């Protein structure tokens, strides 16, 4: 049962289409992730839902109520800003209590609730600290408690962890997820980070240039990204253009790196003349060192290593193949160096086809 429905929403700033014909819905208690690069319209979407900006057209309904034109403070939604926007002139308690005081709760009740929330984010002993005395992660947790305090039915979080370092961010992701699940609030979480989205989301919404490109669970998205943009956002690096030159038991695809052989699939959008787009997970490429004794397999590519990055348990390589580039990884070997030639063998089963644009 969807609690939030957004239909054909448009918003233009200075003739830029920030949000362009966006429709989606959210179920009660669901955690949605809006995923996309900066400037794709994610934050604008949240501002429209919070009533900080009014849409040019389209409707937003929440719990059966039309949100359009309703003042922010009457919408019953929460929003956690990217810069957190904690009130610097109040202490932690004052910040968390703000929303409760706006509801004119008696101060004894405010105090009880604030301490409950501070318990929830494990900040109980910090109640009397000033905001500028807190570390980045502590501020994040206070901001979360503050936005949960008025018990919003819909909580929106605008890249709340983006200013933290990686270790802290990963620790907080699971904590935020736990808190949101415990409360059971419907949430929209904005991020541009794939791993964060995977950690947080029940469902992902990919946005680019004001449009929604794809909606689905993380598993669905990984299994079949809708287009090149989604694929790259999900972290796939080998997204290439190609044309099917031969379609028999195997497909032969002409591309910048040469002719690639792929297992035949039943996707209807492919035809011999169709210019399709495909990607290969890096795992589908095996790397071997070029040696005189080592004859290349018929379907392997010769490539020149342009870049080598050590990742602890493996090397990531950028390899020049034909007129294009492939990314792949291999276990440590002192023969795999920048400037060396290698053979790359591509697993025909690892190739995926994208229905959308490059």
């Amino acid at each position: 049962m969807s609690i939030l429905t957004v239909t054909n929403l448009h918003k233009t700033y200075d003739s830029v289409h920030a949000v362009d014909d966006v429709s989606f819905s959210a179920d009660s208690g669901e955690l949605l992730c809006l995923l996309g690069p900066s400037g794709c319209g994610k934050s604008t979407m949240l501002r429209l839902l919070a009533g900080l900006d009014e849409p040019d057209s389209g409707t937003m309904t929440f719990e059966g109520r039309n949100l359009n034109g309703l003042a922010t403070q009457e919408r019953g939604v929460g929003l956690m800003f990217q810069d957190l926007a904690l009130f610097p002139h109040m202490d932690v308690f004052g910040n968390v209590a703000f929303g409760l005081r706006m509801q004119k709760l008696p101060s004894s009740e405010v105090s009880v609730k604030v301490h409950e929330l501070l318990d929830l984010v494990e900040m109980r002993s910090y109640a009397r600290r000033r905001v500028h005395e807190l570390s980045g992660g502590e501020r994040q947790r206070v901001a979360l408690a503050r936005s949960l305090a008025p018990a919003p039915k819909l909580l929106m979080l605008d890249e709340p962890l983006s200013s933290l370092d990686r270790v802290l961010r990963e620790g907080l992701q699971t904590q935020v997820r736990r808190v949101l699940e415990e409360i059971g609030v419907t949430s929209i979480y904005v991020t541009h980070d794939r791993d964060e989205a995977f950690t947080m989301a029940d469902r992902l919404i990919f946005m680019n240039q004001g449009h929604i490109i794809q909606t689905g669970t993380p598993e669905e998205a990984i299994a079949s990204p809708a287009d090149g943009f989604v694929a790259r956002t999900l972290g796939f690096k080998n997204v290439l253009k190609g044309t099917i030159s031969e379609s028999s038991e195997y497909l032969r695809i002409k591309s910048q790196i040469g002719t690639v052989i792929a297992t035949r699939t039943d996707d209807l959008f492919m035809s011999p003349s169709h210019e399709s787009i495909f990607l290969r997970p890096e795992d589908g490429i095996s790397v071997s060192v070029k040696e005189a004794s080592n004859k290349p397999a018929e379907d392997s590519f010769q490539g020149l290593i342009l870049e080598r990055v050590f990742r602890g348990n493996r090397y990531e390589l950028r390899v020049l193949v034909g007129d294009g580039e492939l990314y792949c990884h291999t276990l440590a070997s002192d023969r795999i160096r920048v400037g060396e030639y290698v053979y790359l063998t591509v697993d025909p089963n690892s190739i995926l086809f994208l229905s959308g644009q490059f």
Partner: protein
Amino acid sequence: MTASRLLLLVPLAYLAIFFAYPLGSILERSLGGDSGFGFDPFRVLLSDSYYLERIWFTIWQAVVSTLLTLAVGLPVAFLFAKYEFPGKTLLKALSTLPFVMPTIVVAMGFTALFGSQGIINSVLMSTFGMDEPPVRISNSLTIIFMAHAFYNYAIIVRIVSALWSNLDPSLEESAKVLGAGPIRTFYHVTLPMLLPAIISGSLLAFAFSFTSFAVVLVLGGPEFATLEVAIYELTAKLFRLPLAGALAIVQLGFTYLFLVLYARFQEQSVVRMDLQPRAATTRHATRWKDKIFVFGMILILLAMLSPLIALVVRWFTIEGGFSTTQMANLFGSDSRGSYFHLSPVKIIWNSLRFALTTVVISLVIGTIISYCITNARRKWRTYADALVMLPLGVSAVTLGFGYIIALGRPPLDLRGSWLILVIAHSLVAYPFVIRSLLPVLKGMNPNVREGAAVLGATPTKIFMRVELPLIAPALFVGATFAFAVSMGEVGASLILVRAEFTTMPVAIFRFLGLPGAANLSMALGMSCLLMAVVSVGFIAIERFRYKGVGGF
């Protein structure tokens, strides 16, 4: 001892000789009377209800003036902080104009507009055929309050709008999301955040109203005298120097208190907030409500300038005003038309050269002090800041009076020299250099300096090539303020000046004291010239102003 420490000795010595020593002499004069060291003058002061009343009056008129200043200043600050509209830069420059106007010009403008023969009354009388001027606020408290608000509202606008326009908009938006309406958002979030700026601006406005001189003297008439006016009368007319000294010390105590508070709040308003670049927070007025507000505020701002416009209009319309005879009087080299045995051209030249010398001295003193304050330990900064600002709060009359006592006798007798005037001016002027320079220095990334040093620049080269270009706009602003202060200074000048060193404000003051329409028209003409000279200097300010966070 390093070179920079040695450099600090220059302003310290200057302040010791030309500020502390004269003030100390006042103290000595009032405490060490004929009958030995004692607190007699203070005893006289405290038992004389007239002087107690003066103290009380000075305080409460400053409170009322400050409240009125806030009432005008805050809406204007909101306008400049939150809205973009055509002509904003020009209007901003114009709205600051009253603050750099010499007080004597402000007083003249108010007389020209509201006086019994002023424009408003003349128009009303001729339109409705009245025999008596209907608006009678000259020589009243009302006109003093209005003039103080007119003179000081730009301080509030500058300080508050600088902070307001840089407040992170998501703070207010957060409050809304958390369920606060517009009024509660303002009361619980915006206002508390602005409070340090509002308080520091108010304290400064209070200090200026507290030490107000020319406005009260010219507009208030004999009934209303602030401490400053009382000191002037005791010194220049009644020659009761010990009593004047005691009053000056009382005034000094009050102003130091205000300035310490000012510096403390000023520090707070800069340090604690995450400030956002200005562009993110201003918007064009698109809704009707906004448009009406912007339009209305612009009208009010233009109305605020009317005393200055009235000054010019009155000069043109007064009998014997803007005429060839008067031009000849103003610009001719004939000194027979003058009452000072000095041609007006000479007077203008006096003002200009004194002002330029003042600028040079103020820049040197102000720059060195600013660097020292920036590098000082946090604990001392507030007190040092307030201390070096003290000359701004100490009335010029007190200063001039101290000079008469201290610098009119060996070992340092400067009474015959024009230097004594310039020194007095520079003491009132250099705090402005500090105020415009400090925000830039505080905001300057120390890595810039270290970066230059790593690249092999010597300290001198670092200053000339790296720091000077960065602080140049602020120096320019400070210089313009110093110029305006010197051009308009009247309190110390009235006490110290010799006939041959008469300056424009002093001449205006003297013209006003003489009977007859011809003298009034000469005073108006001189005021208009003074206004023109200062305006030209000031219009340039907005173009060079430091565009960062903070500001005066």
